[in-house]
């Protein structure tokens, strides 16, 4: 259920990215979030311990304390955000919205970070396989 809620949150965030005129980012975000939520739901089904024993180990008052702390954080950050007077969004042209702009930027201005990101993703994939295999062997 929690993985389904995460998928809902990701879809909502993707819709907001579309409203913000970033269709390519929204597409990439929704694709990644769909994969992540699918894997999460698989792991939740495989590994979650929903027995009474697991529920009994919850920290006492932990939920209340965390809710108060999160509410306080939200209020403080919202006050900070609401203070400056922001105007409505300026009209965006084709240059901003176009995926061509983004693609050109990725292979020119951000070529090195783009390559490094690819290497990082490859390293993460290899590392996850190694960690999972090592866990099996232990």
């Amino acid at each position, binding site marked *: 259920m929690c*993985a389904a809620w*995460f998928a809902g*949150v990701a879809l909502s*965030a993707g819709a*907001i*990215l579309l409203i*913000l*005129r*970033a269709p*390519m*980012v929204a597409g*990439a*975000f929704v694709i*990644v*979030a769909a994969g992540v939520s699918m*894997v*999460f739901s698989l*792991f*939740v089904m495989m*590994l*979650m*311990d929903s027995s009474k024993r*697991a529920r009994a*180990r919850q920290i006492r008052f*932990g*939920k209340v304390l*965390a*809710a108060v*702390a*999160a509410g306080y*954080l*939200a209020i403080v*950050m*919202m006050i900070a*955000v*609401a203070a400056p007077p*922001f105007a*409505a*969004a*300026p009209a*965006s042209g084709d240059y*901003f919205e176009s995926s061509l*702009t*983004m693609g050109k*930027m*990725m292979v020119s*201005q951000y070529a090195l970070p783009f390559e490094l*990101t690819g290497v*990082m*993703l490859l390293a*993460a*994939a290899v*590392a*996850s*396989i190694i*960690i*999972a295999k090592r*866990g*099996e062997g*232990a």
Partner: protein
Amino acid sequence: MTLTLQHVLIFSVALFSIGAAGACVRRNMLMMLISIQIMFSASVVAMAGFSRWNLLPEGNAATFFIIAIAAAEAAVGLALLLAVFTRCGTLHADEMKLLKD
């Protein structure tokens, strides 16, 4: 009603706070990982909002890198969870106290 940057940022703040609360409250490491992903989503929305209001496509490009980092974090995090579960038989964070000894 006109959409302003405040609306986007307030949504982002609310999402981040929900993720932070989840990471603090839940003792299951899988739930903590999902909460961290929610915090990543909040940062993506905030970044895209700033990019839209300043009309800078560079912000959207940076958002791609945040998404890639979130994906890598999920991959490694889930592998770690699997290794922890096969070793300890539980994902409860309070059971992981080997570093204390």
